[in-house]
């Protein structure tokens, strides 16, 4: 068998077909890599059972041998600070799950629309909308106009401007422009927009609420969902969807019966990614929450800021409980991530 280097890289032979020597080397490398990946988790796990002395007196590796494990850090978080921990945990769960659900549902529908419908908004009208919105924001931020009034007036002005002038604009945007606009939202580092976002929620008195953080996360995750799902949707043969239409399905029926099942791999992977991003997000949560809506990453960071120095043991406990939901979700979703869903659809 002559296999090129590329084939070796991208279509590796099954480990069962290898010569014993090669097999041994492969297993050795895999074992090393596994240890490499798992070691930090192991380290966090044992650190959560260490006392301050164990941590500070240099590295100790093996519980019961190197050091005597103790439950003090666990007790501290789950007995003394139980309500604080629980609240942060629930906040994190509610926020991450809601934001993930919202961005995946809205994002995949938007993405499907961009993949299958043709939009041609007039450039001038879009431009007018942006101008009017900037005007509305300035009115609120600079001149203290009530935000509801400002938004309503802005929308009204835009509506009449668009009605009056819209027809005169020739240049049109395309789906590609919309798609690029979506992803351009992610080009800005979050730190750049954090202050405007903060001010916006301050205006509408939503600081330190779930809804503020959920909305923010949904918005920052939408571009990711749209971009990832766009690829999956466009890879579904259009014939299938047209055939379903002829078979009698509505546009939504086509999406539900044909498109969603065929893109479930992508959907599962995207959901997982968005969930992880929302679950671990720190910067925006730091600005948008002060106490009631604090999430787990904020709690972890707080371990860093006590007057007693960095509380490695407590931090480890929090990290471990933080890993659990993501692992559960990954295990659930992994079943849906499979290759070859489209096999047999066309030709053959």
């Amino acid at each position, binding site marked *: 068998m002559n296999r090129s280097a590329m084939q070796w890289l991208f279509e590796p032979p099954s480990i069962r077909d290898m010569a014993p020597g090669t097999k041994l080397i492969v297993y050795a490398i895999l074992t090393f890599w596994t240890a490499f990946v798992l070691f930090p988790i192991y380290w966090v796990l044992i650190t959560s059972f260490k006392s301050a002395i164990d941590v500070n007196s240099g590295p100790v590796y093996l519980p019961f041998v190197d050091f005597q494990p103790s439950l003090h850090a666990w007790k501290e978080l789950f007995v003394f600070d139980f309500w604080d921990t629980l609240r942060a945990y629930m906040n994190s769960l509610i926020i991450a799950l809601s934001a993930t659900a919202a961005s995946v549902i809205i994002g995949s529908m938007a993405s499907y629309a961009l993949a299958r419908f043709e939009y041609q908004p007039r450039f001038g009208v879009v431009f007018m909308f942006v101008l009017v919105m900037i005007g509305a924001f300035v009115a609120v931020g600079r001149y203290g106009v009530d935000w509801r009034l400002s938004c309503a007036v802005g929308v009204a002005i835009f509506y009449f401007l668009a009605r009056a002038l819209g027809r005169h604009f020739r240049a049109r945007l395309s789906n590609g422009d919309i798609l690029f606009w979506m992803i351009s939202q992610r080009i800005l580092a979050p730190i750049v927009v954090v202050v405007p976002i903060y001010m916006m929620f301050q205006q509408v008195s939503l600081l330190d609420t779930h809804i503020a953080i959920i909305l923010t996360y949904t918005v920052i995750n939408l571009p990711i969902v749209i971009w990832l799902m766009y690829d999956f949707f466009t890879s579904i*043969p259009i*014939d*299938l969807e*047209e*055939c*379903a*239409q*002829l*078979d*009698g*399905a*509505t546009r939504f*029926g086509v999406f539900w*019966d*044909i498109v969603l*099942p*065929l893109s479930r791999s992508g959907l599962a992977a995207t959901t997982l990614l968005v969930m992880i991003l929302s679950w671990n997000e720190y910067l925006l949560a730091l600005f948008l929450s002060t106490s009631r809506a604090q999430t787990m990453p904020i709690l972890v960071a707080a371990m860093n800021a006590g007057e007693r120095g960095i509380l490695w043991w407590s931090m480890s406990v929090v990290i471990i409980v933080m890993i659990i939901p993501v692992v559960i979700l990954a295990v659930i979703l992994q079943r849906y991530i499979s290759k*070859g*869903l*489209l*096999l*047999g*659809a*066309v*030709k*053959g």
Partner: protein
Amino acid sequence: MTVVLDAVSKSFGNVKVLHELSLEVQDGEFLVLLGASGSGKSTALRMIAGLETVSGGRISISGRDVTDQLPKNRDVAMVFQSYALYPHKTVAENIGYPLKIRRLNRTEVESQVREVAAQVRIDELLERYPRELSGGQRQRVALARAMVRRPSVFLMDEPLSNLDAKLRGHMRAELKHMQHELGITTIYVTHDQIEAMTLAHRVALLEGGRLQQLAAPKTIYEDPENLFVAQFIGSPPMNVAHGRLDEGTFVIGEDRVATGGTETVANAVIGLRAEDCQVVAPEDGAIRAQLFANELIGDHTLVTAKIGEDMVSIKAPKEFEAGIDEAIGIAFEKDKLYLFDRDTGARIRRS
């Protein structure tokens, strides 16, 4: 059910791909849209299905104007070139999908699926997934899915082109039989003239988005409207030779062929089918030619000869032998001769 296209046209941006196509498909008819790749066949079919908007003209099905109807409201079923089987559904689910959408109850769906599956002989495969089927089996599933809900019209876009030659011939015969049994109006798109000639009640030949001729296969072969149709249909294509028509006499080089008419056309073309010509001695033929090559093809010899600059093919008996570059004569009966105006391509019918 009838399908009527009334001056239907289609443009993609500035490119007009279908020019005022008008045709009427009778109830129960098998109409084949034939044409080279890019001639607009699929576009026409997709417009009938409602998958493509109409730029001009009207389409009606069973007397009902459907020009602005959604595909699902047109009561047509389509078999795609790619088969378009739903890969995540079993064969039974694929076939039953149109019924499921129509909210038939489960037992009803099951019995109807069984019935059509038996008709196309895939009842053994109902539990399989499309990826576990061969090309021919997938083809049958696609067919069954189209048949199961008894549409007014069947639309098929090159349904056999992904099969190998042997299976294609077999499926062609089955399709023809099935259409006859079901009696459902069928519009069938293909670029393969054999398919068109064997399947069709009538053939609509398209070129460059224009209808060239709409007629029964026999008519389209024997009585082509224009030079394009004449050269498209038949294998080998109709021979043509360029010359001029002088009061009914076709002048080509030094030869003069009486055609029986009286027309005068400066730029004219004669057409002759390979099987209507005989190779004879130079002095006995109506036209003299120079032998270019001869190839023995089983039951006959295909002789290629040059008349001036034009190459022609002639079917000769398999015993035929002659040396390359030898002078030969070509003989034919006068009424087998076709005349065309070279500038317009139009047929010149002898008065």
